[in-house]
């Protein structure tokens, strides 16, 4: 996976309408009209979003030449997800160390009652 592909993926995902389009396509292919239906925006606007998604390689055109349905291309999304997971792996161990430190500090703040009081 190239940085360029990753950038294109994240740029395409930065827009809520495009995310909604991808969510719809994740359920199965759909024509441009079907994709435009739930949104209160013009068809040219939808077409522009589709062009961005297509250029980023996140969607492709299905076989039916008449309906020209769009389909989702899962690989770049899987790559982006793997990238985010790596980010988590980098940060999370430090945070877990911080968890432990916070636990230590809290147990120091509430020390056991002095043993002498028992006797």
């Amino acid at each position, binding site marked *: 996976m190239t940085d360029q592909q*990753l950038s294109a993926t994240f740029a395409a995902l930065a827009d809520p309408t495009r995310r909604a389009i991808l969510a719809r396509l994740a359920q199965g292919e759909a024509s441009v009209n079907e994709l435009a239906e739930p949104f209160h925006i013009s068809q040219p606007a939808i077409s522009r979003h589709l062009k961005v998604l297509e250029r980023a390689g996140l969607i492709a055109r299905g076989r039916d030449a008449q309906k020209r349905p769009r389909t989702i291309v899962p690989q770049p999304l899987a790559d982006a997800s793997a990238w985010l997971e790596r980010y988590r792996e980098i*940060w999370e161990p430090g945070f877990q160390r*911080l968890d432990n430190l916070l636990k230590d*500090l*809290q147990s120091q703040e509430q020390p056991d009652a002095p043993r002498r009081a028992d006797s």
Partner: protein
Amino acid sequence: MTVSETFKLSLPDDTHIVVSREFDAPRDLVWQAMTSSDLIRRWVAGPPGWEMTICEDDRRVGGEFHWAWTGPDGMQLAMRGVNREIVPPQRGSRTERFEMVGGPPMGEQLATLVLVEQGGRTHMTITLEYDSKAARDGAAASGMEHGMSANYARLDELLAQAGSGSK
């Protein structure tokens, strides 16, 4: 839900990275652990073979901070910047720039820490802001992998050691 499952990362737009996490401790304590040099040394350690050699922070607006690590064969990694905002125990922001001897120059990011307490737990958000999308993606791809991973990678090994050492 374990605390670590609360880790979230998002890219809300082209120039930001947002990391959030919850901690099972009151906000005052989390603030202390994230801002006092003595405590920072205890969790922002380096990977095995690396040692945090400098942990200085002039805790004033306009004051500079300087963290550095020394690795195998004398490799050096540092992070420097300037404190922009300090509002204990809830908000801090500072500029950050990684420096690696022999490494590519890395851009500057603006890091903003926000802590919110809820029912004895603390919700942390770190927002990293970059000058451009290219800078963000570059930092994410290179600076993060080399810089951040040198900082955090394989810390679970250290954690395990610390865990067994305390028994």
